[in-house]
Every structure is written in C-alpha cells, then in structure tokens.
C-alpha cells in the first residue's frame, strides 16, 4: 500500500492542486492593420486563428501560455488582452478580427509603447497574484513606414518612436523581454525597422508568406513553452535566434 494512503493523505488532491501551480509564458502579437495591409487581411486573420488553434491543441499550453493581440494603425487597440490560451474564445476572436477596419496610417511608436504598458500591467498583476512567469516574447508585424497627417502628429509619433527604441534596447540589455520585428513587403522604412529591432536583427518576409510567418511564430511560442526548463541567458538568446533562422530558411525555400 502507498505510504500516503497509509498516512491518510490523498496524493491525487495534491496533484490536482499542483496542476494550478504554473509558470506563465506571456506572448504578445502587435499587428499592423493600416490601409496597405488590407490586401492580405484575410490571410492575416486565418493565420492568427490557425496559430491560436495550433497552440491550443497542447493542453499544457492552454494553461501556461498567455496570449495578447494588439492591432494598430493611426491608433492602437487590444483585441485580446493577456488571456490563457485555454480561455480564448475563438469565435469572439474571429469576430473581432473580422470587424477590424484596415485603414489609416502606421503609427508604430505609440503601438509599441502601449504594448509595453500592457506587458507591464500583466507583470504587475502576476506579481500581485504571486504567479511566476517567463520572459515575455513579443512579435511586431508591420508592413509600412510611418506616415503622418500633420506636423504635430509627426512630432508626437517621432517622440514615441524614439521612446520605443530606448525601451526595446533597455529590455534587451536587462533580458526582460524578447522583441522580434518582422517587416512584411517592401514598403517598410529599413532604418526604423532596424532601430525597432534594437540589438537584434529585423526580419523581412514577402507578403505572400503571411501563413509561413505565423507558423514560425506559433512554433517559437510552442518551443519556448515546451522548454520551460532551467537555462541560462545565453541559451535563451539562442532559442530566439533559432526563430530568426527559421524565418530565413523559409525565405530561402521560397
């Protein structure tokens, strides 16, 4: 007979309680929905939904991965707040994605800063609740360069862009987050994209490769969530470099 049965202790109850002890992997997608993206909006919607579906197939991810999706053009909007994969209502997400209006300009700076605020709130909430979490992964997908309606608009956005460059660099230096920049198509401003990538290398893919891109994003989240083993900073950096490699491999295949 088991020692715990002898002691009158129900190990199953302990294990059930243990199941709720989790360490969260926060993942954030910042998606550009400016006017120029409209031509492949359908691909974008199906790819995001496929990403959620694919990740949800893994029971562990349902509990341990928290996803947040933010979209931006001239303004930004969080269409999915940090939510456990298992709790994501796919129908509602699909509805929200389909209701998006692909128009306006590309104000990346304000969106990136808002995304960091969202991550900070999530961190604070987790600390309050005594929950443990891993280094958040962020993917910024954009297809354009910033264009402004007025000079004040320009100044404001430039200021926010500058702030986001500094925040990304700080994030990378303090190892408090992984920020991946993926530019889609050839209408991007390489200088801005390079600055947004901070110390990392920005990725660029052809707009026909949207599905491939999201597959790689999904694989990266999957791999990070599957490998929540002890590691050091160097390995963690390598892990995300592998993501970049993966994308470039796809490009070569094309």
């Amino acid at each position, binding site marked *: 007979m088991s020692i715990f049965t002898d002691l009158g202790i129900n190990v199953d109850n302990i294990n059930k309680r243990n199941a709720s002890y989790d360490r969260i992997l926060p993942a954030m997608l910042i998606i550009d929905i400016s006017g120029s993206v409209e031509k492949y909006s359908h691909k974008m919607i199906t790819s995001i939904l496929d990403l959620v579906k694919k990740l949800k197939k893994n029971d562990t991810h349902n509990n341990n991965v928290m996803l947040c999706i933010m979209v931006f053009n001239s303004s930004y909007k969080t269409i999915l707040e940090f939510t456990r994969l298992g709790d994501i209502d796919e129908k509602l997400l699909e509805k929200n994605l389909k209701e998006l209006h692909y128009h306006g300009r590309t104000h990346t700076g304000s969106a990136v800063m808002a995304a960091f605020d969202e991550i900070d709130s999530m961190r604070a909430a987790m600390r309050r609740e005594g929950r443990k979490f891993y280094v958040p992964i962020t993917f910024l997908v954009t297809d354009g360069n910033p264009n402004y309606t007025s000079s004040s608009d320009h100044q404001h956005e430039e200021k926010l862009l500058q702030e986001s460059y500094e925040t990304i660099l700080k994030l990378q230096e303090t190892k408090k987050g992984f920020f991946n920049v993926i530019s889609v198509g050839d209408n991007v401003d390489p200088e801005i994209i390079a600055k947004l990538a901070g110390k990392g290398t920005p990725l660029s893919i052809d707009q026909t490769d949207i599905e491939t891109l999201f597959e790689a994003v999904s694989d990266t989240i999957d791999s990070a969530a599957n490998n929540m083993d002890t590691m*050091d900073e160097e390995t963690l950096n390598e892990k995300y470099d592998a993501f970049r490699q993966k994308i470039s491999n796809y490009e070569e295949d094309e």
Partner: protein
Amino acid sequence: MPCFSVSSATKGQNHIRRGKPCDDAVFTAVSGECRAVAVADGAGSRTHAAQGAAAASKIAALFVSQEFDDLYSLPAGEAGSMVLYIVRKALADRAEELCCSVRELGSTLMVCGAHNDGRSLTIHIGDGCIERPEGNGSVSVVSDYEHEEAENITELITSASPKIKEHKSCRRLVYMLRTDGTEPLLSDPCLCRLIFSLAVLLPEAKFREACAELFIVPDDSTVAVAGDLSAAVDTVMSATDTTVLSRLLGIPEKTVRCRRSCYRRVLTAAASSPCTMSKMIRLSRQHTAYRTIKKLRPLIDCGLLQYRNGFFRMEK
C-alpha cells in the same frame, strides 16, 4: 555524533513525455568523519545536461567530503570558489570524453558537507533552495535563488562568473536541498515538513518510493536531507503532525500525544550514540527494562530504533 543523508531524484513528467533522461543528479560521499551530498540540476536546454549534472554532483560531493576540514577553515566565500574550480576542471575532462563543449554540461549545484563533530558547510550555485527545517515547524531558508525577472533564467556552474552562496555553521544542524522542480509542491510548508519527516523517519528506499509517488510535476525533482542525525530526529519529533506520526509508528494519536516527548528524548539520544538499557530506562522514565521495551516497542517495530547487543541505536 553521526551525520546522515537521504536523497531522492524523481524524473519530471515533461521529461517522461519527451523521452528525456532525468537531468537531476545526486551523489553522496563519505570520507572519515565527514559526509557530503551534492545535488545538481542539469540545464534542460543543454545537450549533455544529465552527464554534466552527474559529473558535477559526484566530484563536488567527493571533494567536499575529503577536503572538509580545509574547506571549512578557508575565509568566507573561498570554499565555494574552490569547489567551483574543481568541478569545472572535472567538467572539462568529461567534456573531452564526450566530445562536446563544457557549456553543454551546464547545471546548477548545491552541496552540503557535514562533519560528525557538528560542523557543516553548504555551497549553492544557481537556482534551487537549501532550507533548514526548525523544531517549531517552520522552515528557514539558508540560501535560495532570487529570480530577478523571469523564472526560466538561472546561473549555471558553467556561467562566466556565477554567484556562489556559502554557509558555514558549527551548530548541529540539518539541511534540506531541493531542486526547482520540487517548487510546485514544496513551496507549501506543510508538504515541505512532511517530506522532511519522511526523509528522517523512513528507510531511504521507502522515502524514494514516497517521492516518486508525490512528485508528479513537470520538471525533475530532487530532494536531499543531510546533516546531524540527532538534530534531525529532534526536529522531526517536535514538528511532525501527530496524525502523520501516529500512522508512521502504527499507534493511536492519543498515545503519540502522551509519548512524543519521551520518543523525542530516546531517539535523539540513540541517534547521538548507542545507549545502554539503564540510560533508556532513565530517558523513557520507566522502572524496568520490560516496561521500557514495551513503551519503545513501536519505535523498534517500525525500524526507527534498533536494540541489539544490549544497546539501543538509531542508524540511517
């Protein structure tokens, strides 16, 4: 007064699912009057984590047990650096054998060396936790790892300049070393106390069975308890829940409540050195050998106390 050690390494559920080996390793070494136990948690992200953890724990335990006196007399912080240096040298040799780079053998390391004269030394690199269960039921932390931000980043013995936490004491103490895989369960002080009690009260094989049954957790989980046996018994007999003690000893709870202090005196004395019948008669506050044996029968029956050649002993 003898020191003791008990350990158990349980493979994590994620490792079982992925067909990976247990990346935790634990090694115990005894040299003369000193005993050392080392626990290493191989970094899952490294290709030869299990081999690295095995090599690191083995060399660290052997080195600390053999060189305890010299290490203990070194100025604060130097014993840890010395152990790290030796472990790294051993890892370099192992890497050569395995034809891989040293970094692929990365692991954390916790070592506890205890001398029969009561001195003890702990060295801790990377995550995991070294704790000291107290007689009042609380668990005090000797050294742990403060994650600055995310939970999956830690320092390894192969990191450039890992932080070494070292602790020395000349008091008779008992330590519990545990890898981060145990955290889902042992961050609960009740379970932590229970595991400590089982480590002291059960034979090692049974303790391992209990750990295998309990640690159904994602990561590999290793627990090692080491230190002064009489201090361990004293702590366990003071802090263990009455129900648990009554089930382990096979006697009613009411009897445990009446006899707890007697059993504590008897076991603590027997753990320190073999006791004669007359000493046991005095400690158990009985008048005859017959009544003493009768009172201590539950301890003898469950194997905690041995009576042979006219002496009572508690051995682990």
